Each structure stands twice: as C-alpha cells, then as structure tokens.
C-alpha cells in the first residue's frame, strides 16, 4: 500500500515537472521574438551621449587592419564630439577576424550589442563571413549595421539582411571589374593564377575575377589555401613558371606577406602579385615593387584625411577610412532619429536608408547614398602599386 502511494506520488511529481518544463519552453519560444521585436521598437531616451556598437578585429590575425578601422572610427568620434553638443560613445566588440575562434567571437559580440538597449546602431563588422554570422543576432534585435570593409557581392543581394545591413565600400562585383581590367590592359597578363583563402569573401571575389579574366581570353589557374596555413612553398612550386600575375584575394596581410616572402625565397620574386582590399596594408606593400592592390576610393586631398595623417604620425594608410564614413552614417542617422528626444533602432534604420552625404563633404571623394540593397549608389574601386613600400594609386 505504502509502495503504491510512493509510486503514485513519484508519477505525479514527474507529470508536474513535465508540465512546468513544457510551459516554460513555450514561454521561452513566445518571449524570444517579442523580446527582439521589443528591442527594435523600444524607444530610448537619447540624452546627451548616444551609444554606437563598434565591431572590429581589435586583436587576432587581422588586427593590423582592425586597429586601422578603429583608429578612423575613433577619429570620427573625436571630431564629432568636439563639434557637437551631443556626444557619441562606442561600445567596442573584438571580433578576432581570421582567428580559429573568430566567427564565434563575432557572434558573441553581436549578441552583447543586441542585448545592450542603449546601442542604437552598429559600425562593422569587418569581414563578409562575420556579416553573415552576426546577421541573426543583429537583425533579430532590430539593429542596423554598417560595414566599412565587407565587400562580398552576395551579402547585400541575397535578401537575408536587406534594410538592416549597409556598407560604405563598393562590392566585389565592382572590385573584380577593376582588377580584371587592370590585369588585362595595364599588366598585359596572358597567364594568371588565383589563390583564394577559402573564406566567403575570398572565394566570391576569386570566382568573379576568374570569370572576367577568362572572358578576356586570359589563361587562369586556380587554387586555395587555408587561412591558418603558413607554409606556401608546396603551392608555389605548383604555380606554372609562365604565370605573369598571381592574384591573392585574401583577408590577412601577414599571410600575404608570408606568401610573397616565400615566393622570393624560391626564386619567384619577380612575379607580379595583385592583392585585394584585405591586403591593403604596409606588410603587403613592403614586399617590393612587384606588388599591386585594389582598394576603396579615398580622397587623399580631403582635409580630414590630412588631419588624420598628422594625428597618426604621418600615417597614410586608408583601409579604415570607410569605417569613418560608416560611423558618420550611423551617428547622423541617430541624430536625425533623436530629433524629438527619443529614438528606436527601427527609426535609426529608416534614417540610415535615407543617408545622403554629398561629394563635397564625403571623405571618399564621392557622394554616399544607399540603394535598396544597402550598397552605395556609386561604387568605384582604385588600383595601387607599391612604390618604396607605400601604395600609390595607378588606376
């Protein structure tokens, strides 16, 4: 009798537990979207200081380009705060682009920004893979994110983040046209070898350049390396001797530098190397005069560019300049959304879509406005040549 009572009590307890578990799971499921929707629509009192998320590779293999982006974004913050009554504050998240745990770090950073209700918009992240990985968290929380370097063509066209994601750099479809035209007409290459780094940014750009070069009757070979790889000698041996140009659409300048050095040590130092925007860095330029690179448009004559160079010991690296523009876009949108004293993330997104920076006031030397996909309406790319270790524009 007593055993029966115990069994009944146990069964009842189990049933109660099951009901509680089911109810709490249902509550979780129901709460998740409404919490996200709530974050997107929630009105935040603007106050004197407005918060913007800043996602960049502060550390990691891509830290050299990340710190450059951060320096430019902070330069915008500094000039803004000095000239406005209201102030902006960055909430920094290190994405460690290119590190083994890089994607996980970027998602973690996006989640932190999503749950921080004072953050009204985000500058970054830097890489196209990171943009894909962080979309769920940022879009789910209603945050707009404006990248100053993610160039993969498809991330604006696949519809997965339309209305949320914008960029202040031209896409790879523009870059590939410029690069393939330069390789064909200026470098007069007959045989090109492309080595991608197996990441979304790299393979996408490599595919586009390959197709366009083949359309110009240029022989194209193709191979790939891992971003974690440091020994390129085996692949260098494989590259045919009659190759005129090797195209490296890579993200990590130290890897580009290692590839170039290993080319030299294997007696192939005279082959022309063409990098992509990800390799636009002194580490790559320092390899020698056989190095070329494609890069975003920047107006070196702009007084802000000159002031930045003065502030940073004469530095003339512009990789981070579009991040200045990204910060400018987000902060201007927040200012417009905050006109009545409060703003929501949805209002900031709507204001970013309406961005209009005239050519005269744009650091990039061209007007900045976004099309319905989140791309800039005007999107030219420049080609640079390494002269005494510094990139000089040649096309």
């Amino acid at each position, binding site marked *: 009798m007593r055993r029966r009572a115990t069994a009944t009590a146990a069964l009842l307890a189990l049933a109660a537990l099951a009901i509680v578990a089911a109810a709490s799971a249902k509550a979780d499921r129901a709460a998740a979207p409404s919490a996200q929707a709530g974050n997107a629509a929630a009105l935040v009192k603007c106050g004197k200081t407005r918060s913007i998320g800043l996602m960049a590779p502060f550390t990691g293999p891509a830290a050299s380009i990340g710190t450059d982006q951060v320096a430019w974004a902070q330069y915008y913050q500094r000039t803004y705060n000095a000239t406005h009554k209201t102030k902006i504050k960055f909430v920094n998240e290190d994405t460690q682009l290119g590190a083994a745990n890089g994607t996980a770090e970027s998602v973690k950073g996006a989640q932190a920004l999503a749950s921080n209700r004072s953050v009204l918009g985000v500058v970054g992240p830097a890489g196209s893979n990171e943009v894909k990985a962080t979309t769920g968290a940022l879009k789910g929380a209603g945050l707009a994110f404006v990248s100053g370097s993610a160039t993969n063509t498809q991330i604006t066209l696949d519809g997965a983040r339309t209305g949320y994601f914008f960029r202040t750099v031209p896409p790879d479809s523009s870059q590939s046209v410029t690069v393939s035209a330069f390789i064909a007409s200026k470098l007069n290459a007959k045989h090109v070898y492309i080595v991608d780094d197996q990441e979304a940014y790299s393979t996408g750009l490599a595919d586009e350049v390959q197709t366009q070069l083949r359309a110009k009757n240029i*022989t194209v070979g193709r191979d790939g390396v891992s971003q974690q790889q440091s020994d390129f000698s085996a692949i260098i041996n494989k590259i045919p001797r009659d190759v005129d140009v090797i195209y490296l659409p890579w993200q990590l300048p130290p890897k580009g530098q290692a590839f170039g050095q290993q080319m030299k*040590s294997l007696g192939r130092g005279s082959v022309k190397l063409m990098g992509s925007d990800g390799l636009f860095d002194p580490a790559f330029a320092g390899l020698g005069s056989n190095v070329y690179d494609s890069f975003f448009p920047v107006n070196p004559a702009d007084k802000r560019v000159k002031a930045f160079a003065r502030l940073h010991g004469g530095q003339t690296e512009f990789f981070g300049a579009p991040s200045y523009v990204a910060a400018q876009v987000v902060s201007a949108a927040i200012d417009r959304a905050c006109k009545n004293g409060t703003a929501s993330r949805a209002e900031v997104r709507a204001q970013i879509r309406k961005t209009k920076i005239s050519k005269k006031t744009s650091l990039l030397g061209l007007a900045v406005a976004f099309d319905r996909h989140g791309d800039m309406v005007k999107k030219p790319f420049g080609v640079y040549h390494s002269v005494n270790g510094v990139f000089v524009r040649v096309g």
Partner: protein
Amino acid sequence: MGRTLLCDVLHPVNWSLFWGELVSGLTLGSIYALIALGYTMVYGILKLLNFAHGDVYMVGAFIGFFALQWLGGPLDTVVTGWVAVAVMFLVAMLGCGALGVGIEIFAYRPLRNAPRIAPLISALGVSIFLQNSALLLWGPDFRSYDTFNLVGVKSYSIGQNFFISNLQIFTIATSIALMGVLTLLIARTRTGKAMRATSFDREAAEMMGISVDRVISFTFFVGSALAAAGGVMFGLVFGQIFSLMGFTAGLKGFTAAVVGGIGSIPGAMLGGFLIGLTEAFATGYLPGGSTYANLYVFALLIAMFLVRPSGLLGSPVIQKV
C-alpha cells in the same frame, strides 16, 4: 586553357615540380620529425601521450622570437644574423627544456601510478593551459621573424627551374644534425643507456640503481628542446608565428610518431619526413591538394592503423597472458 594547366601539373616528367615538392616536403618533414621525436621519447619511457608537446613547440617559437628582440630585433641585431639565429636556438631549447621538465614534475609525476587515463587528461589540461596563457600573454596576433632582414634569404638554382633557399638547406641540415646527435646520445652514452633501460623495464632499471625520475626528466628536457628547435625553424622558414600554431603542428607530429611506430626514434624521424612529403606532394599533384592536404595526411594515419597498427618501424607489443 584549363587543360593546359592540368597538363603542367600532371606531366609525368615535370621535374621542376617534383624536386620543388620534394624539398618543401623535406623542410616541413624536418620540423614534424623534431616534434614527433618528443612524442615518441616520452611514450617510449612513460607510455604517455604528451598532448601538451605541440604547445611546447609553440612556446619555443615565441622564446626564439623574444630572444631575437632581446638581441635588438632583425633589423638591428647586436651580433651577426647567423649568430643571432644560434642564440635563438639555444635560448629556445634551454627554455623549453626547462618547461618540459616543469610540466613533467607538476602535471605527470604525481599521476605516475594513477590509471593511464589520468595523465592523458592532465596532458590535455596542460595543452589548454599553455595555449590560453600564450593568448593572454602574447595575444592572437602574428609575429614576424623577418628572416629576410635577419639573415638575408638567398635562393640557389640547380638547372633551369629548380630552386632551393638557404633556409630550406639550413632547416633540413640542422634537423638531420639534431637527430644524429640524439641517436648518438641514446646509443653511445650512459644516459642513453639509462633511458633505454627505463624504457625497457622501469622497475628493473630502478633496482639496478638508475634514477628513474632523473631519466624521465632528462627525456622531457630533450624532447621539449627538440620541439623548441622545430618552433624556431618554423619561424625562420615560414616567417611568422602565432599562439595557436601548436595545435595542428602537434597533431601532425603525433601522426608522424604513430606512422613511424610510436616509441621508435628512427620511426619518428621517418614518420615526420613521410608526413611532410605527403603534404607537399598532395598539394602539388592531387586534385584540390592544397585545400585537402590535411585530409590526405590524416587518411595516411588511418590507413597505417588499418594495415600496420604498430607503425612502420614499431614492433608489436607482446603481452604475457
């Protein structure tokens, strides 16, 4: 167009490619062999898989880097380039030797009589500890040895299309010399005899008056010093080092030790060269080779387990039942 490229690669007498991949494979294999030696020596004596060994190799590369900075950096060394390289090797080998002894004393010795799984877990813990300490201390950024400015990289051509660099010659020659010294140490010295005795039967060796603790510590010292030499070589040849470089290299070194026959010193050397050559030739000749080079390497490991579980030069363990 695509066909022309395929012919370039698959042409049966493309000697340029063949010799190029051979030298690349031997260079990489030299480094794997040095790592594999540490795995095999420790396994030979303690029957322990020291999974922290790959991270000791990484620490060695960093000690070499900081020794170079201490000497003034690659552009402004207070001594000539090759003397600086010698100092880097010496400091890294001594530093990692001491680290290896420390790891043995603190992480493995207290577990010597525990079930075999305990030191294995401890080894994994040490590996994670070293990796994360490196990330904390030195960050995840790449550090460059800047070998071009340090020693001036030169390439020599043999025939029309075959090139070999002075660093590749240096790496292969130095590792063969280190392996030769190790072989002599084990075969011709009293310490080597003590190591062999301990490996054969630890208890009997102890009863014969051999200080087993000292022999084990010495084994860790030598194995870790060789891994450090591998780390410095990696930095010199491939130009850059980073905090997580020990993981994959450790796995490859372990694979080399297993392929050669774990516990066998000549086997570790052979396994190292075999893994390096597999990686290089797979990159050069097989479809998608550079992308899937690691796949081919680990497929070799699986094949070896299936065909010859004791490895190329390992002997099957006979157990008294």
